[in-house]
């Protein structure tokens, strides 16, 4: 499977990554090679096989929905690159 430059750009947009021209070229080559190696899975007939999302069956279980104290705002915000009062601040999203 060979990826086109347009596909690389599209995937980068989906992933919120701003790739440089140089990165685009390298990623196009490397991902194409990796995807080609993945083609081996096509040899297998999996029409009747159920997918596995977690391999261990007896894990999990939900805890009761009980309110508990959580981080105080000062602690939750201590790593914020920018904040306004008790909120995270982001660049303007509406013109």
């Amino acid at each position, binding site marked *: 499977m060979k*990826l086109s430059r347009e*596909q*690389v750009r*599209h*995937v*980068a947009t*989906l*992933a*919120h*990554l*701003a*790739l*440089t021209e140089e*990165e685009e070229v*390298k*990623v196009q080559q*490397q*991902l194409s*090679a*990796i*995807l080609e*190696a*993945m083609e*081996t*899975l*096509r040899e*297998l007939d*999996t029409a009747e*096989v*159920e*997918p*596995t*999302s*977690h*391999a*261990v069956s*007896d*894990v*999990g*279980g*939900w*805890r009761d929905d009980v309110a508990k104290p959580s*981080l105080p705002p000062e*602690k*939750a915000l*201590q*790593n*914020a*690159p*920018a904040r306004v009062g008790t909120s*995270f601040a*982001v*660049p*303007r*999203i509406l013109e």
Partner: protein
Amino acid sequence: MELTDLTLLELSRKLAAREASSVEAVRGSLARIERLDARVKAFLLVDEVGALAAANASDARRKAGAPLGPLDGVPVALKDLFCTAGLATTAGSRILEGFVPPFDATAVRLLREAGLPILGKTNMDEFAMGSSTENSGFFPSRNPWDLSRSPGGSSGGSAAAVAARMAFGALGTDTGGSIRQPAALTGTVGLKPTYGRVSRYGVVAFASSLDQVGPFARTVSDVAALLRILAGHDPCDSTSSTRPAPDYLASVEQDVKGLRLGMPREYFELEGLDAEVRAAVDGACRAFETLGAKLVPLSLPHTKYALATYYLVAPAEASSNLARYDGVRYGLRVPARGLREMYAQTRDRGFGPEVKRRILLGTYALSAGYYDAYYLKAQKVRTLIRRDFDAAWDKVDVIVSPTSPAPAFRLGEKVDDPLAMYANDVFTLPCNLAGLPGMSLPCGFARSGLPIGLQILGKHFDEATVLRVGRAFERAHDFVRAPPLGEA
């Protein structure tokens, strides 16, 4: 003989006998870090003040006759993937530089509550993506057995710290081999428990259906002692098992008479398996026969599909998990005019090449039109790989194999060839895809002097048998050695 030459349990016994103090042990470790780590580069951060405070508290408890944890006072190190309250946590990434978590990961809390001083945070491949530590956003770590070589990865810093005797034990994480492969390459013991055996809460997520926390130490019993502290259910991790954890130390000395050890043809006959590795692992198998175990050749027919399966499933999960690094709540923010521009610039500047590669691969495998062909297909093949093991467990109690196809490789040797780097994980990946416990322990040395690792895989939640088999080998053939490091 220095304190740092003791194994974790030897130190614990010495502390109990009041022949040494925790402060002396921590000072011993810190002095060794000071002396050696400029060359080994295992640590990203050393917390001298915190470690000494914890050691003082431990010594005070002991003096006062207060209740003590099972390894109270024994200093350990943490892979920098574990959130530590008040102590910077980077996941090996520039995008998290300066991040100070407001809470402890559950595994860290359990160690602290048991009284183990934390020496610092160890280097790793960025977000645990890699097999060499060369993907660290900061610097590569070096193998204490040969400083021009990699200690493996992604938990390479933890492995190197334990191998160089800078820490008595350490925590790592293993998503596709990131504990077992560095353990093999550094001559240490590393255990990846069953998926769900140890809480993942507060561990920076890479691939959530595969990630698991586990210990490194110099001996199998040391690893068993650490697992006893870590294992158990955590209400903060809904995938952690409620199954009670046994006392692993209580069963570790049992012999292996009559146990059935599976030797998967696909692992032993791999093209590219180093001849010396093969010879050492064959030697280990013969040793098990001498000890009364039965060797059973078997087939895991879908082994050759594990690499492709893993490198679709793990990047897909990573692309989702790493969406949170957007410059809003923590870590790096590159200022930009608009929100989307800020996201993209921050992520481009903050992530290294391998992380970007995996995010893009995962995003592609999940994107409209490709989901069925890649991600869903990989999940289905994952079922086939899991069934291979299910069938094997009818015939054998554990599976033995090499951990890594070759001893430690040189830094720079594979860093520009992602597929060659991924091939390091060929023996370790299937275990994660199937959620099984797996351990690596030393089983010999190559002529170059580099250590070779033996992998033991077990049934779900049967760490006890994996440890017992490892310990039986270790008792008969002790390959625990100190790396040269140019000092007496």
